């Protein structure tokens, strides 16, 4: 790197090799994994809105889940998903899962197959829930789904035509769907359900996304979306609020220490700047 070599103490403080920051962060993140701290969390308004949007539906209402989740990002969202599936099944909603991202089917298979089995809640496939498989919908595909489900998913995940699935007999567009839960990983995708479901059909919609996408979802809450979950933090909140414990707790704990080395370097960077700016420790210039 063609950088000027730091000479003064303050310059050195502002030019510490980044690898020290990396190493310290790694060590500090591991500590709470080995020894959890068990601190409580505060539940935020959008999480309560998210929960209430499901809670106020009558049992038997139809909930569509646009599942655009990525395996690589699952640590950030798994707590949200597991809690959501449990809430839906506990309240006996009829659920339509449709996967819009390549890895989503694998995640859903793992969730429904081993972690939150619908059969444990008395659910029967085809009558209480369906899984429409994967199609890379994009925004245009989401619009098509709202108009004609069979146009984008002629068969379910297992190759059965939708007409042969009892639950789907009368359902072919948004009109029979009571709530959309839009799960996504690309922040601006929040605009898709807003444009294709909320604006044209005024469909109640809640979204589940990554922590970084919270700021992009916030402007739509509560006028266009009734609630949102962003990141594992809100995943932990929904676990706590719905009393469905899950993987969110460990995540929240390890964040506590993992962030400290960064905070230390933030302080060092500013002390370095101020030291250079005000020439601390150097003899004052005589005018």
């Amino acid at each position, binding site marked *: 790197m063609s950088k000027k070599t730091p000479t003064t103490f303050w310059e050195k403080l502002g030019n510490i090799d980044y690898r020290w920051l990396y190493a310290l962060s790694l060590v500090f993140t591991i500590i709470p994994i080995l020894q959890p701290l068990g601190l409580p969390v505060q539940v935020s308004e959008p999480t309560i809105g998210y929960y209430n949007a499901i809670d106020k539906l009558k049992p038997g209402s139809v909930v569509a889940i646009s599942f655009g989740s990525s395996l690589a990002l699952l640590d*950030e969202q798994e707590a949200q998903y597991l809690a959501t599936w449990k809430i839906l099944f506990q309240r006996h909603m009829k659920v339509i899962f449709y996967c819009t991202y390549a890895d989503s089917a694998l995640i859903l298979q793992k969730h429904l197959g081993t972690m939150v089995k619908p059969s444990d809640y008395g659910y029967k496939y085809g009558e209480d829930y369906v899984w429409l498989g994967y199609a890379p919908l994009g925004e245009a595909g989401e619009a098509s789904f709202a108009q004609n489900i069979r146009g984008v998913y002629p068969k379910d995940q297992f190759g059965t035509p939708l007409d042969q699935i009892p639950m789907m007999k009368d359902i072919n567009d948004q009109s029979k769907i009571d709530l959309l839960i839009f799960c996504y990983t690309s922040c601006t995708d929040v605009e898709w359900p807003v444009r294709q479901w909320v604006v044209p059909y005024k469909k109640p919609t809640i979204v589940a996304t990554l*922590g970084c996408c919270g*700021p992009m979802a916030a402007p739509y809450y509560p006028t266009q979306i009734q609630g949102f979950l962003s990141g594992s933090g809100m995943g932990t909140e929904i676990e706590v609020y719905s009393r469905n414990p899950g993987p969110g707790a460990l995540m929240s704990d*390890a964040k506590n220490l993992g962030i400290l080395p960064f905070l230390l370097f933030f302080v060092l960077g500013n002390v370095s700047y101020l030291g250079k700016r005000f020439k601390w420790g150097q003899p004052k210039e005589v005018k």
Partner: protein
Amino acid sequence: MVLFIDLLGGLVGTFFIISVLSMLWKDNPIFRIGQQAIIGATMAHYILLNFKSALNNAVLPMLGGNLLLFVPLLLGVLMYTRLKDNVAWIARYPTGVLVGVGTGVMIAGTLRGQIIDQIKNTVLDLTKSVISSNSTGMINNLLIAIGVVTAISFFTFTHEHKGVLGASAKIGRIFLMISLGANWSGEIVWYLTQLIGRLSWIINTVIKVMLLGG
């Protein structure tokens, strides 16, 4: 009892996690092996998924009588003309279809979702807080409205940022900077979660359960 296949999966996964993390230290063969392996893996995954999608949604329905689906398949195949210089021009036709559809989707969605609704929300939120005499809400929504107006003015390119426009752009820049900071903060905590997820998987699943049988 841990199955061998699970243990192998755990070790393979751990190798790849270490491979990726090692790039932070410096370039090294473990990182490069992992990186090259993942190119091949994702390439195969991409091909499998899309060919399966084309087979189920076009080829099979076409064989079943929906002959119109031959058109998108043909357009897709025409894309490959790019590989041969003398016929590369043909690829512009399917490209044109893609861009045309994309542009249509974009225009229809942008008008209301990204412009009119954003302005509507700014107006309605402030109006509601004024009507309900919610002073905190009023101040907040007024600040949002000021943020919207001044941030838009920052993106003025036909006039220099001087005088009133300069002052407005300066205020807008402050709102924009806060927004950039807020976006950064949303991401850093998410990424920390990812780190925690992988480390806890290595410690709690691979080491404690698979290797130590705990």
